[in-house]
C-alpha cells in the first residue's frame, strides 16, 4: 500500500534519515519510507556496521560521513544535500524505528496550509507508549529549558520528527553536531521569527530502542553543549 498525502506525493519533499549503527533496524524503517512517494536520503554517520549497505539495498540516496560526527551533523548534511537537489519541503525522521510514516501527512499539513514554516512532532500531544517515567520528566524539563532560552512554548522539544519549508531550512543553519541540535533548531527558528507549530505524533519505545537510544544522562551532555556553545560564540 502506498501512502500518498498530497505534498508527500512529490519528489520535492525530502525525508532526511540520520543513521549511526542502525543496520538491524534501518531496513524496516526504510521499507516504510519508500512507500511514501518522495525522496529519501540516509546519512550514514560513520557507522561501524552495514548501515550504508542496508540503505543502498532499500534504494534510497545514501551519504556517508567518513567519521562519526553526531546526529545533528548528519541531519545538517542530509538537509544541505536535499536543498541542493531542489527540496521544497524537508522532513527529518529517526532511523531507530520510533517514528511512524502514518504521522507524515499530519506533519506536512500546516506547511501545505501555509500556516507554519517549521512543524514539530509532539509525543505529548500524541502518544508515547512505553516511555520510561524518568525520560518523560527529563523531556518535560527540556521543554521548560527551551521555553526559558528561546521563548517558544512547546510540549515536546527533543523530537526528531520535524518538517520545514525550504525557506526555513535556509534560515535554520544549526551548528550543533550532537543531540543539542534539537534545542538549537528551535532557538534559531524563534530568532528568525519563523512560524512554529506542533502536531501530535506517536513515538514507540521498546526494550530495543531504549537500549540503543539516548541515555538519560544525555540530557546533561546537551545542557553542557548548549552552555559551551553560548560561551564560545
Amino acid at each position, binding site marked *: 500500500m502506498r501512502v500518498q498525502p498530497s505534498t508527500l506525493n512529490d*519528489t520535492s519533499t525530502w525525508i532526511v534519515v540520520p543513521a549511526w549503527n542502525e543496520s538491524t533496524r534501518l531496513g524496516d524503517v526504510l521499507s516504510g519510507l*519508500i512507500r511514501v*512517494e*518522495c*525522496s*529519501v*536520503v540516509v*546519512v550514514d554517520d*560513520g557507522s561501524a556496521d552495514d548501515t*550504508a549497505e542496508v540503505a*543502498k539495498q532499500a*534504494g*534510497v*540516496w*545514501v*551519504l*556517508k*560521513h*567518513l*567519521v562519526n*560526527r553526531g546526529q545533528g*551533523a548528519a541531519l*545538517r*548534511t542530509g538537509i*544541505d*544535500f536535499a536543498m*541542493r*537537489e*531542489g527540496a521544497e519541503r524537508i522532513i527529518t525522521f529517526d532511523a531507530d524505528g520510533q517514528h511512524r510514516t502514518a504521522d507524515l501527512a499530519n506533519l506536512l499539513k500546516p506547511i501545505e496550509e501555509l500556516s507554519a514554516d517549521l512543524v514539530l512532532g509532539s509525543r505529548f500531544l500524541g502518544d508515547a507508549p512505553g516511555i520510561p517515567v524518568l525520560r518523560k520528566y527529563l523531556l518535560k524539563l527540556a521543554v521548560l529549558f527551551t521555553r526559558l532560552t528561546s521563548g517558544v512554548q512547546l510540549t515536546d522539544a527533543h523530537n526528531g520528527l520535524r518538517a520545514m519549508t525550504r525557506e526555513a531550512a535556509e534560515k535554520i543553519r544549526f*551548528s550543533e*553536531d550532537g543531540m543539542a541540535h534539537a534545542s538549537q533548531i528551535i532557538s534559531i527558528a524563534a530568532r528568525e521569527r519563523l512560524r512554529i507549530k506542533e502536531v501530535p505524533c506517536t513515538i514507540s519505545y521498546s526494550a530495543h530502542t531504549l537500549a540503543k537510544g539516548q541515555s538519560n544522562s544525555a540530557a546533561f551532555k546537551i545542557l553542557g553543549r548548549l552552555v*559551551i*556553545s553560548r*560561551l*564560545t560564540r
Partner: protein
Amino acid sequence: MTLFQWLAGGLMVAFAVAELFLQFMQLSRRSISSIRFSVWLVALLSILYPGATGVIANFLSIGRGADLVLYSSVIAFVVAFFYVIHALEKQREQLTLLVRRIAISEPYAVSNRNSLTADPTEIGSERAGEA
C-alpha cells in the same frame, strides 16, 4: 641571588629568547607571541624582584605578593581555558564541514550502484525512490 632565582629566572630568559627568535624568524603569530613574551618577562621580573609583587599587591589592596601571583594565575587560567575551548570548537566545526563536503560530493543512489564518485549533478536528476 638564590638558587631558585638562577634556575627559574634562567628558564624564563630562555623562553623569552625563544619567543623573540620565533618572532624574528616569522614562525609564530605576532599577537600571540607578544602576549607570551610579556608573560615570560613579567614572570622573570617577579622572580628577580620578589618585593615588587608585594608593592603592587599593596597598591591593589590585595595584601601579599604571593596572593597577587595566585589571583593573576587564576585569571590567566580561565582566559586560557576559554581560548582552548574556543579553538576546539572551531576545529570541531571545521572537521564536520570537511566530513559533510566529502559526504555530499559522493552521493550514492540506487541507480548508480557502481558509481559512488559519479558527478553529483548528473545523479541529481534521477530520484532514488523511483528507481
